[in-house]
């Protein structure tokens, strides 16, 4: 529902897009040229967070290991570049490359394969076990890359030059920004299609009631696995872009705190909304940058902000803004999120009992 409303406001969307297109020019004109790289990072993390949101928000599956796919995407770019610059093929027959038209699809493909393997195993469990097993797989990959001395081990891989795109000067920061912007726009358009498709509806239905979906005759496991794979591919794409932007890939990209940060972005923006994760990524990165410039103890402030958001705002910054503005549509969303919290949708016959219990708690 939220995603629809987001697109029902084409004027707002167009305005945001125009600002994003004009951003590098504005940044240079006002003298804040660092703004462009900040915006590039926001776009990239926005893709990663939105991918995570597909399983987390729409699918209701709390994956604590999505940094693994982010890191895999980065390492695909890094490893292909290393073999390109050393001019020795990978495994003896795959030539390295520095062409973005090859590295990005390769990163998406490999992270999709990894997500298929990890998802196929993890989705056999649920609840706490699912959180922990996704974390475990991410840790496994983290330690694997730490121990691969050929690819830099602990220190990571330096990519001397950003991948090439035919006809573009990729050494220019602005060009990299626009490439990321185009990819982000395409990605969100695709995500919008997915979320509003039959597949997206089934996914949300599975979150609300697996039993009901099973009764209709839909295979929960297959739908969830598909969502997990798409989500892994999105994170891989983001990782590949990040490796290109930073010209660096390291095990830190798949550290478990990175998975945590992606989740923080999702919840900051609003779980289960289309553009929420992008807003969340923006809030997170801007917060991190400004807090870090004020004090070296920025993590303390970030921790408190996170606690506040989780404990007192239901639905992240987006919902908070809407609530402050007293929008009637928001009131509807609120009652729904409350209903979801008490799982009324799952057991309609016990609505009364559940409501009474929740009253008794307070």
């Amino acid at each position, binding site marked *: 529902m939220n995603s629809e409303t987001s697109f029902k406001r084409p004027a707002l969307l167009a305005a945001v897009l125009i600002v994003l297109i004009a951003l590098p020019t504005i940044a240079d004109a006002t003298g804040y040229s660092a703004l462009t790289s900040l915006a590039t990072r926001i776009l990239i993390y926005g893709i990663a967070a939105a991918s995570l949101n597909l399983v987390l928000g729409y699918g209701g599956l709390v994956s604590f290991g999505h940094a693994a796919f982010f890191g895999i995407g980065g390492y695909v770019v890094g490893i292909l570049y290393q073999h390109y610059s050393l001019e020795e093929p990978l495994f003896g027959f795959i030539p390295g490359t520095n062409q973005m038209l090859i590295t990005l699809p390769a990163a998406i493909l490999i992270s999709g394969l990894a997500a298929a393997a990890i998802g196929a195993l993890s989705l056999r469990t649920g609840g706490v076990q699912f959180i*922990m*097993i996704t974390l*475990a797989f991410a840790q496994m990959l983290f330690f694997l890359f730490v*121990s691969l001395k050929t690819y830099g081990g602990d220190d990571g891989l330096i990519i001397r030059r950003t991948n090439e795109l035919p006809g573009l000067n990729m050494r220019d920061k602005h060009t990299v920004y626009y490439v990321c912007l185009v990819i982000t726009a395409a990605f969100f358009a695709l995500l919008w299609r997915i979320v509003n498709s039959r597949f997206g509806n089934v996914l949300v239905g599975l979150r609300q009631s697996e039993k009901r979906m099973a009764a209709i005759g839909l295979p929960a496991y297959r739908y969830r696995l598909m969502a997990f794979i798409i989500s892994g591919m999105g994170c891989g794409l983001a990782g590949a872009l990040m490796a290109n932007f930073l010209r660096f890939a390291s095990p830190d990209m798949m550290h478990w705190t990175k998975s945590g940060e992606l989740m923080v972005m999702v919840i900051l923006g609003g779980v289960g909304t289309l553009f929420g994760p992008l807003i969340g990524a923006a809030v997170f990165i801007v917060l991190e940058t400004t807090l870090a410039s004020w004090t070296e*103890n920025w*993590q*303390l402030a970030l921790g408190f902000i996170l606690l506040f958001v989780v*404990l007192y705002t239901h639905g992240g910054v987006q919902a908070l803004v809407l609530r402050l503005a007293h929008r009637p549509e928001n009131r509807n969303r609120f009652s729904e999120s409350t209903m979801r919290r008490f799982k009324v949708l799952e057991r309609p016959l016990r609505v009364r009992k559940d409501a009474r219990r929740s009253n008794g708690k307070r």
Partner: protein
Amino acid sequence: MTLFLEQLLNGVQFGVMLFLMAAGLTLIFGIMGVINLAHGSIYMIGAYAGTFVATETGSFWLGIPAALAAAALAGVVIEFLVVRRLYGRDHLDQVLATFGLILIFNQAVTMLFGRQPLFVQMPSILDGSVELLPGLSYPIYRLTIILVGLLVAFGLYLLINRTRIGMLVRAGSTNREMVRALGVDVRLLYTLVFGLGALLAGLAGFMAGPILAVQIGMGEQILITTFVVVVIGGVGSIRGAFFASLILGIVDTGLRAYLPGLLRQVMVGPEADALGAGISSMGIYLLMAIVLLIRPKGLFIRNS
């Protein structure tokens, strides 16, 4: 043979440390349904408070009550201010709120003690080794840890199975709603359980001090391993946590001790060491993945 026995003892010692952490975590999981990432922070608080007092007063023994008190206090405060609001919320909120707590505690400890790791001198009685078997001498301190861990395990067994509080804990982990309906003050029970878990984590943190460095991030390292223990043992099962801790401790230590050597026979020295270290770090996660695939609820939970 003596090397093998020594590694086995090292594994058991690591295992009981894990158990001290896992016991609290599994109870909190099982009874309150809360994923508490901040459990590692409590371990760190215990280590820092104990080490600080021990260094200031010059007495290792005074560090113990300091560590226990600081950890239990931190636990009760966390429960009262944050975790209490998370009961009944979904796992995502719990993970994120306690992730926020980790950031806060790590930064607060950095501000108080700086980034340099602290070291604590162990008391002279526990310094040195004893000869257990001819040719096998083992540090007294590590033996003490094993002993303390086993005593705590036995104490917990008595507490859970022989006392009224233990009965409530068992009842709470089976059917929370029923316990509340019968008029038990569940809030107090929750705070007690959380405090007990924190106390054990603090003890583990302080005992780890002389072996490992007391530093920022020490909590997260052991936390993730502890999660593996809890999940393998089965969420909510103390018995499961105990056996899973020992298994993981031994497997992890064994891999680290023997794998690089085995790899060195097929590869070049330094690369074998790096790969061996990497694979042995992966070992426990691999074990967890296998266990979950065979028994999704953990080893010691009966399948319903």
